[in-house]
């Protein structure tokens, strides 16, 4: 049965190819083969960038300090600086310095669909590289490692995650912190009540107003909220961690040429130590728009990731 189906499909295919089409296909093949600039045929994203003359970067609007809009509504940040290096590498690879860079804001909800349907070519933000997500997209080498932990008031008796037992805490809806917390409750025999803020500032407001005892989230995001608070000294981040998660740029799957270029570029930044300069600019110095300093030095986990560039996802 299968054999016959294959035959008829082949017959249909033959019928489809008219002479005109044959000429067009062979012409196209000739052009590609004859182009001396390319040692190998470009595929995937690199071919798309060559054909359109444009690389489209997906950026976030409020992922401070990774990718966000500054006071001039420009997309800036640590991830944007890293992506600028990727753009340079693409220009060199295609031997075309006139490649245009288009910017497309994305949200955590639409970043994957927009990448998959070709609206963006690379996402530069604060996206966790997880094994689950790798079924749908690919990631570059880890450029940041976060700990999921809790911020509390300095005056509070809570010093460890276990102290959260019996407390009400806030967290932001739709983040990976939510299932982690549920799992911790089950395994650690801890009972907490959660309130979900729609964004980080709302979750933090609940802590400021003493509506909750702690705000559970990625440490760097907690640091960002605290740095912007009226009295940053009132808050402290617990050093324990529910889980560490790697962040990286997001790429389309099964796109080996572009992936190799991104790996090479980011790996080079890490090997040369240049990435530490980029890091210092965004995490330990004052950044726009309000000139606050996150005071978030490189963690041991991140140093390890810089030493051994990898794209391993978290389970």
């Amino acid at each position: 049965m299968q054999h016959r189906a294959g035959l008829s499909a082949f017959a249909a295919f033959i019928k489809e190819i008219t002479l005109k089409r044959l000429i067009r296909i062979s012409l196209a093949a000739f052009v590609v083969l004859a182009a001396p600039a390319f040692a190998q045929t470009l595929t995937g994203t690199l071919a798309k960038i060559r054909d359109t003359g444009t690389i489209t970067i997906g950026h976030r609007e409020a992922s401070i300090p990774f990718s966000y809009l500054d006071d001039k509504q420009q997309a800036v940040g640590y991830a944007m600086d890293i992506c600028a290096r990727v753009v340079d590498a693409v220009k060199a690879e295609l031997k075309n310095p006139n490649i245009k860079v288009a910017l497309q804001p994305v949200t955590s909800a639409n970043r994957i669909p927009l990448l998959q349907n070709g609206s963006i070519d690379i996402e530069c933000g604060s996206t966790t590289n997880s094994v689950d997500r790798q079924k749908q997209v690919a990631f570059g080498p880890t450029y940041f490692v976060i700990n999921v932990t809790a911020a509390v008031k300095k005056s509070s008796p809570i010093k460890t995650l276990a102290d959260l037992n019996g407390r009400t805490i806030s967290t932001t809806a739709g983040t990976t912190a939510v299932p982690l917390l549920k799992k911790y409750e089950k395994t650690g025999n801890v009972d907490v009540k959660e309130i979900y803020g729609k964004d980080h500032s709302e979750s933090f407001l609940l802590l400021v107003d003493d509506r909750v005892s702690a705000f559970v989230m990625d440490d760097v995001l907690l640091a960002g909220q605290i740095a912007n608070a009226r009295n940053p000294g009132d808050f402290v981040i617990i050093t324990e961690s529910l889980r560490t998660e790697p962040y990286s740029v997001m790429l389309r799957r099964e796109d080996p040429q572009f992936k190799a270029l991104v790996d090479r570029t980011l790996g080079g930044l890490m090997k040369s130590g240049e990435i530490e300069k980029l890091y210092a600019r965004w995490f330990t110095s004052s950044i726009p728009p309000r000139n606050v300093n996150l005071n978030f030095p490189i963690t041991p986990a991140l140093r390890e990731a810089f030493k051994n560039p990898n794209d391993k996802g978290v389970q």
Partner: protein
Amino acid sequence: MGFSLDWSVFLQELPEGGVYYWEMLLSGLWWTLGVAACSWLIAMFFGSIVGTIRTTRSQPLVFFGNAWVELFRNIPLLVQMFLWYFVLPEVIPPLKRWVVAADPAEAQFLSATLCLGLFTSARIAEQVRAGIQSLPRGQRDAAQAIGLDTVQMYRFVLLPMAYRIIIPPLTSETMNLIKNTSIALTIGLAELTFRTREMGEYTFRFFEAFTAATLIYIAIAMTANRVMAVIERRTAVPGYIAGGK
């Protein structure tokens, strides 16, 4: 490029285990229905009273009714939700003590129900007023002529006809109310849209999750629509405005 849809995602377990995604959406649906039903009762109750008193001849009552409608109608729903949940407890210390001690879901449900109920009551009040004012002046005169007092006049003559007239816009309002419950996600109430977004974030299957949510919302709104249509037919006064074909 291009993406494939995977509908089996609803049969997958959540990362924390033990619960499936379809169950998670369903748990959101119950909150949606709960908020919608309770706030509809609040909206009908206050909407009827406020709408009615705006058609009376008492100056203070009319003023109160106007103030009510303008207050709840002129502030965006999203802002009202924020005010009820985040700001009001800060202003009223006893309320704050209760909110901090209570189960978060209870406080969110209460805030969302009150907020949506009162917001919608302002809109229903306008419809009730329009319904009453659309009645011929003769009805009011006739009621007074046969010796009914004001309450009896509204109860037995004006309101029964006014309600029949406003069933179509009331249907729209009910359907709006059901869909407006999704605003409650901004205060963290785990209703249907909240759960849908959560599911999208965990599985990265936004299209599947939102398609399911869309179908569920359509189903609820259509059900409400059909129920109201039945009420409209059943209560029609033969030969009078409503239900005449």
